[in-house]
């Protein structure tokens, strides 16, 4: 617990670190206007939840059908739940927040997804009371460096993200020109 607090305090100061000019031999970084990562402590970003209010879709991903329900990934953020029991009235009915997710598969009432580099098993028997059955940490090692928010959407300069916590979004700010996206 104490460690968590220390880490949290370090994170809250992390925005100050960007003022320090990164040092790479042979490269002179410039102060530019670009995208800066918004971090969250991994433990916090990995909390799952269900909201019975449908969310708008902004970055849709894979679809999955099981029984009377459809599911669609909101890449990097979670899973839309669609009630398809009467197809002519099918509609989004809620959203499962799983940051760092991009995949889905379901067996019985257990939903399998990824959350950054973890494999996550979620009991969806009762959507309003979903529970994390198991999280296999580091199941997919690539997921630590390769998830949706690891890069900003738009091209241009951005501040290279750290890997000791997770990126949950990007904001425009004055940054050092440490990374560039074509």
């Amino acid at each position: 617990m104490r460690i968590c607090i220390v880490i949290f305090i370090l994170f809250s100061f992390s925005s100050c670190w960007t003022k320090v000019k990164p040092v790479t031999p042979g490269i002179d970084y410039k102060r530019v206007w670009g995208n800066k990562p918004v971090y969250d402590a991994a433990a916090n970003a990995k909390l799952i939840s269900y909201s019975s209010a449908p969310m708008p879709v902004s970055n849709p991903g894979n679809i999955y059908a099981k029984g009377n329900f459809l599911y669609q990934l909101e890449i990097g953020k979670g899973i839309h739940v669609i009630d398809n029991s009467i197809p002519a009235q099918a509609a989004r009915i809620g959203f499962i927040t799983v940051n760092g997710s991009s995949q889905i598969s379901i067996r019985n009432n257990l939903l399998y997804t990824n959350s950054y580099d973890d494999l996550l098993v979620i009991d969806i028997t009762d959507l309003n009371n979903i529970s994390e059955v198991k999280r296999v940490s580091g199941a997919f090692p690539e997921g630590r460096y390769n998830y949706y928010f690891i890069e900003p959407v738009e091209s241009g300069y951005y501040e290279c993200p750290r890997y000791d916590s997770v990126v949950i979004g990007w904001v425009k700010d004055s940054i050092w020109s440490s990374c560039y996206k074509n």
Partner: protein
Amino acid sequence: MNVFIKRIFIVFTLSVFINSCTKDGAGNTSADASTGKAGSLSKFTIVGSFLYAVDNHYLYTYDISNASNPVRTNTSEINFDIETIYPFNNRLFIGTRTGLYIYSLESPSSPVKVGEAQHARSCDPVVANDTIAFVTLKGNSFCGPAESGLYVHDIRNVFQPVLLRTVSLANPEGLGLQGHYLYICCNNDGLMVFNVADPANPVFVKTITGGYFKDVIPYGNQLICYVSTGITLYDISNPADPVLVKHISN
């Protein structure tokens, strides 16, 4: 439709017989009500009590017979740029940007590569049945230079897939197979319906327009389409003629 169900039932019955000698057979997934059905762009799939997941380089196998304790039983390095995974009848079909790989699930805890069909660099989801694998290749600056289209492979000899036919299509992406009908998402060009009763000669049936089609799941009498503006549901009681039922907007 009934013919399809009958066929699935026969296949399932056969696979039960075949599997009865193994401890925990990975039966026919499409007849397995305990799991759902994914679109063709998926990287996760469950067969029997195993979860198969691909990232860009690896195929991971997890034994999920005890859900509260998934255990990794195998890691296989495949190659770069794995795009999709599709299960059918004790096989996994893995689409990568340089080829189609077929893995046997005879031993479900450790899939073994049995066949492959190399192709020029491109994006390529795949669907398959016992004898045929349908692959769409999308050649563009991001995916690679291959000629875009539908590629039909004969996989009766799974060790050596044979390219039977190519059908040139502009922007093919996800695809779905149900019975004798193949549904191909062609982005802005619409959803194309082919009759593949004779897989070597896919017959174009019609195009459904009105969206940027990404992926599709034939699910019983329903065709579930992932379009850029939302999800569109069609009735395919007549598989040759999808009828719009509902569009769910983003």
